[in-house]
C-alpha cells in the first residue's frame, strides 16, 4: 500500500511536469480552432505551419542562437575551467566570485544590465547582442560543470603527464580534455537548454530585426495564439526526444 502511494506520487509529479506539453501535443492534432473541445484528428495545423514562414523562421533563429551560443560558451568555458583548475593567479578568487554571482543573479537583472550596456555601446539589438547575452548567461554553468569534473581527479595526473614528457599543450589535449569530455558535453547540453528555454534575457536584448520564437509567441499571446504554435511546439519537443531515445537505444545495443 505504502509502495503504491509512493509510486503513485512519483508518477503524479511526472504527470504534472508533462501535462502542459501533452495538452499542447493533443491540441496540435485537434481539428478545432480553439482547442477547447475535440473535433476530430487533423494535420491541418501542421500544413498551415509550413505556410507560416514567420513562425518557422523564428524557431530556426532560436535554434541557431542556441547552437552557436552553446558551442562558443562551451569552448570558452572549458578553457577557463581548465585554467582555473590548473593555475593559481592573482584575481582567481575575484573571477570565482563573479561566476557565482552570475549563476545566482536573477535573469531580470542580467537582462536590464546587458540592455543598458548594448545601448551605451550603440550595439544594435539583434543577432549579435542576443548571441553575446546567451553566451554570457551560459558561461558560468559550463565552467562549474567542467571544473567540478576536473576537481574530482587527482592533480598528480597532470604532474604524471609532465613527468612522462608531455608539454603544456599535449597535457591539455591528451589528458585534461579527454577526462573532462563528459562534462564538456553536459555543459554544451545545459547551455543549449538554457538558451532554448530563455525568455527574460532575450526579451530585453533582441530587437525586431532578429525575433526568436518565445518573443514571437509572446507578442502573439495578446492577439490570440494561432493553433500552428501547438504544431510547432510538438515538433520541437518530439524531434529531439526521438533523437535522444534513438541514440540511447543504439548506445545500449552497442554495449
Amino acid at each position, binding site marked *: 500500500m505504502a509502495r503504491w502511494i509512493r509510486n503513485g506520487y512519483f508518477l503524479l509529479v511526472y504527470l504534472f*511536469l508533462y501535462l502542459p506539453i501533452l495538452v499542447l501535443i493533443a491540441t496540435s492534432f485537434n481539428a478545432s480552432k480553439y482547442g477547447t473541445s475535440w473535433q476530430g484528428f487533423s494535420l491541418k495545423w501542421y500544413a498551415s505551419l509550413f505556410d507560416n514562414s514567420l513562425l518557422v523562421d523564428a524557431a530556426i533563429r532560436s535554434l541557431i542562437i542556441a547552437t552557436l551560443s552553446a558551442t562558443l560558451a562551451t569552448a570558452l568555458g572549458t578553457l577557463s575551467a581548465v585554467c582555473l583548475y590548473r593555475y593559481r593567479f592573482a584575481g582567481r578568487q575575484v*573571477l570565482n566570485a563573479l561566476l557565482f554571482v552570475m549563476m545566482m543573479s*536573477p535573469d531580470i537583472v542580467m537582462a*536590464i544590465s*546587458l540592455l543598458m550596456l548594448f545601448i*551605451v555601446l550603440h550595439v544594435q539589438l539583434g543577432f549579435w547582442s542576443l548571441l553575446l547575452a546567451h553566451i*554570457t548567461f551560459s558561461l558560468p554553468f559550463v565552467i562549474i560543470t567542467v571544473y567540478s569534473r576536473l576537481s574530482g581527479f587527482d592533480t598528480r595526473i597532470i604532474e604524471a603527464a609532465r613527468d612522462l614528457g608531455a608539454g603544456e599543450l599535449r597535457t591539455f589535449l591528451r589528458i585534461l580534455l579527454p577526462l573532462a569530455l563528459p562534462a564538456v558535453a553536459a555543459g554544451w547540453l545545459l547551455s543549449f537548454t538554457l538558451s532554448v528555454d530563455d525568455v*527574460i534575457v532575450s526579451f530585453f536584448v533582441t530587437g525586431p530585426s532578429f525575433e526568436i520564437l518565445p518573443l514571437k*509567441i509572446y507578442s502573439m499571446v495578446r492577439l490570440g495564439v494561432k493553433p500552428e504554435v501547438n504544431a510547432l511546439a510538438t515538433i520541437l*519537443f518530439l524531434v529531439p526526444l526521438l533523437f535522444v531515445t534513438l541514440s540511447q537505444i543504439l548506445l545500449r545495443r552497442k554495449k
Partner: protein
Amino acid sequence: MRDKSLFKFLTIGLLALWLGIFVLIPNLMIVVTSFLQRSEEHFVDVLFTVENYRKLFDPVYFGVFAHSTLLALVATLLCLLIGYPFAYRLARLTTRWRPVLLVLVIIPFWTNSLIRTYAIKTILATKGLLNTVLLALGLIDAPLRLLYTSSAVTVGMVYVLLPFMILPLYAVIEKLDSSQIEAASDLGASRLQAFIRVVIPLTLPGIIAGSLLVFLPALGMFYIADLLGGAKDLLIGNFIKNQFLDARDWPFGSAASVTMTLAMAVILLAYYRSIRRLNSGGI
C-alpha cells in the same frame, strides 16, 4: 615554458575581459544609474539623487515588492514540498532507468518556458481542460475562474521552477550514505526521528540551494504574471520591465534592481554562513 604562459595568459585574459565587459561593467552601470535622474531625451541625466530609492518605499511600489516576495515564498515552499519526496524517491531508486528518469525531469525545458506557460493558460482557461474535467466529474456545477489569479501565477512558477528544486536535492540525497540512516535507527531513532535528525540536516545544503534557485527567479518571471495573472498581479520583474521598456524610467528601474540584488546578496551570505557552519560542525 613559453607556450604555457601564452595559453594561460590568453585564456584567463579572455575570461576576465568577458566577465568584465558583460558582468562587471553592466552591473556597475545599474548601480550608477540608480543614483541618477530620469531624462526624457537621453534616458538619464547625470545628476546625483537618492529619490529613486526613496520612491521604492512609496506604499504603491512597496506593496508590489511585498506581494511579489510573498508569491515567490509560497512557490518556493510548494516546490520544496513537492520536490523533496520526489527527489528522495528518485535518488534512492535502484533501477538502471534512474539516469533516464532524471533526464525526464529536464526534458520539458527543451520546450521554451513561455510556450509551456501558455499551455498552462489553456488548461486553466474557463473552458479549459481542468474545468472540463471537473464539470464532467460533477465536482463543480459551473466553471471556476482559475486564470488571472495569484494562484494561477503561483502554479505557473511552481511548474516552471520545480526542476530547479529537484536537481540540487537529488544531488545531495544521492550522496547520502545510507549507513548513517541505519546508524540512527540502530541507536533507537524512529523513521521519522531519523529523517528529521539525520536526513534533513545532511541534505540542508541541497534544500537551501534549491530554494534559492526557485525563490530568486520567481521574483522576476514577468511573463508568467503577464500570461496567467493578467495585469493586476504585478511581480518585481513586471515592475522593472515596465520601468525600462514602457515608463522609460531607467534610474527607478535600476534602483529596484539594485535593491533586489542586495536582498539576494544578503540571502546568499546567510547561505554561505550556514554551509560553512554545517561543514565545520562536522555533521
